[in-house]
């Protein structure tokens, strides 16, 4: 007993030291595990949101990776419009961004949108791409050239000057971007108004020559559209009694169909969407503002969406400067714009 007691007596300090060392090791080990898991979670989160972060950096002026050095708009102040109840305007721009344009893009689609969050009302005005206007550089030309001459900034200035309206934000999307985002959302459900046929549809996204043609047919009626089918629906125009006007109406249809999808999108989905859009998307809205749009878009009832297309007599077809153009009747157009976009200056 004494030996053992002595032994215990001698052994006790070593055990206390060993116990303290083991305790420190256990704590250090546990801390390492916690830090490890925290790091792995953080890494996962960063990787997951990396595309969104890249977009955010780009959109806040930290980087500008697309469209050959367009002047980037000033970053907007933190979601003042979307977090408040004020109506705001958004200029939606769409371009044929395939290889035959070598980065010099026109905007085949321009839709000026006004969102009124309080009254849950949306107005969409399609601006014809052939509209003959004074561009931001002071020259006259088709409005689709504004983006070519000065990117989104010039497109906004041109719209603001000619239509006498204020534009709060813009969003630009290319062909492949539209296909990608629609596919990422699982496609959309649309009621196609009529059989949309085109024997001379540009085969510029199928990998061959961007100058090739293909035949397309979109059947009429309610249906599920993939990104490619939806693009065919909004882009075909050759066999159409109303050409670009009909195309504008179909583009608005797709936007309305997208509204139904926003009910199923959360901010967590935005990174994937941003990644699939890549350089085929540009906006001056922040991710927070885009995510703020989702519940607004999802809550607007179908009957509270006003669609406007500038058919004759608002525009008249003429041959100007060796090309077909639409001459605007500003005396008719501007009062209409002021009515639908009451913040007009």
């Amino acid at each position: 007993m004494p030996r053992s007691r002595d032994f215990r007596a001698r052994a006790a300090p070593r055990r206390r030291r060993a116990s303290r060392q083991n305790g420190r090791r256990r704590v250090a080990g546990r801390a390492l595990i916690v830090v490890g898991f925290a790091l792995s979670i953080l890494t996962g989160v960063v990787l997951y949101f990396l595309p969104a972060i890249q977009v955010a950096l780009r959109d806040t002026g930290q980087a500008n990776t697309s469209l050959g050095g367009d002047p980037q708009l000033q970053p907007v102040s933190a979601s003042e419009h979307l977090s408040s109840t004020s109506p705001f305007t958004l200029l939606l721009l769409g371009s044929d961004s395939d290889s035959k344009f070598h980065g010099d893009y026109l905007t085949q689609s321009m839709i000026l949108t006004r969102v009124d969050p309080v009254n849950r009302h949306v107005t969409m005005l399609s601006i014809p791409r052939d509209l003959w206007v004074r561009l931001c550089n002071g020259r006259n030309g088709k409005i689709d050239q504004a983006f070519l001459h000065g990117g989104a900034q010039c497109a906004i200035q041109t719209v603001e000057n000619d239509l006498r309206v204020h534009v709060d934000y813009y969003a630009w999307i290319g062909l492949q971007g539209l296909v990608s985002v629609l596919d990422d959302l699982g496609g959309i459900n649309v009621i196609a108004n009529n059989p949309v046929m085109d024997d001379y549809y540009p085969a510029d996204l199928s990998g061959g020559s961007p100058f090739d043609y293909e035949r397309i047919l979109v059947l009429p009626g309610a249906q599920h559209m993939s990104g490619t089918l939806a693009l065919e629906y909004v882009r075909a125009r050759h066999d159409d009694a109303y050409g670009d006007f009909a195309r504008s109406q179909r583009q608005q249809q797709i936007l309305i169909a997208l509204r139904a999808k926003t009910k199923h999108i959360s901010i967590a989905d935005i990174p994937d969407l941003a990644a699939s859009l890549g350089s085929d998307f540009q906006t001056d809205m922040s991710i927070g503002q885009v995510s703020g749009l989702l519940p607004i878009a999802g809550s607007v009832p179908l009957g509270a969406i006003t669609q406007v297309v500038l058919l004759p007599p608002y525009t008249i077809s003429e041959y100007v400067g060796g090309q077909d153009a639409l001459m605007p009747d500003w005396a008719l157009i501007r009062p209409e714009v002021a009515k639908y976009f009451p913040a007009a200056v």
Partner: protein
Amino acid sequence: MKRTLVIIALMVASCAAANRTLAVLQTHTDTGSLVDTTSPQVILPGTIFVSQEGAIYAIHDRSVGRLALPSGGAWIQPRPLPDGSLLVVRRFDEYSDLYRVSASGKVLNRLTNDGQSSTNGTLQLDHWILWAGVGPDGATVYFATDSPKPAPRQSYEVDFSLWSAPLSGSIAVGDDGVAGGTRWSVPDAYTGGDIEPVPLPDGDLLYASYANSGKGQVQSVLGLQTAPMSRMVSLTSPAQDCGSPAVAADGVTVAMVCSNGGQMADLEVATLEGSTLSAPRVLVANCLCNSPSWSPTGANLLYMDASDVDGNFGLWSIAGATNLHPGSPRRVTDASVDLDATSAAAWVSG
């Protein structure tokens, strides 16, 4: 040291697991194939043929089977024939052909050869053939095709017109028309034209006709003709914007889908009284519905609808749809199934 390595391994494993979990979750958001899902939610008599992602499926009692059709192209728009076989359209990217196949999917004969560009290299010489249906004599097939059309590079016009041709033998669709066929209609240019022919028991032809409103819109009406190239009588107004006609076995009850120019539609039925249509009764309002078709007895109506919260186009049924007080809509297919909404179901007895 060993513990550190274990922790690092755990970190790598957790990242890999998270990545895999994401992939699995993404997979699970896809819609299901018809044969992979549970049995039909509603048991209906006979066999119902539907199209999904280019395949034709037969729904019979509690089972679902895929027809063993040749691969390539999308098999759509099955239509029953009196002998139990089916007319089916095989659609490729730039043309479509009409086939007669057995109920199990064996190709009995190919009726058209519309992929002309495969031999002449000019894709504008290809043709579409769609919405085929057999007439009351059981020997004449009615269809819509984009023939005739201008020679390549002469015009952008390409619209559907209606034709009929003998079911026996081949149907030669060319740029000048259908050899040996009978032309029924001349489409309004640049509108999409005339589609969805439904031959009636008395020999008349009911169809959907698209026309330029002159006010910035293309609208459709249900049209009726008593003979080839005769004057079309409009059964509905352009403002109703109706299409997808389907006639019940009684020969007079017409189901149709009318959008009233909007982004949603109504599924309606009306009675054909000579060359007029009675006031329609709305069976389903404010729906994303399309492609109604009737049961062999004409009592039950099938249609495609994606109005449910999942947004998938399912097959729906309304019992007693010809009655003043029809049953409530019931979903036949599983909620995860997304059918081809532009392809009406074919319902045969037995």
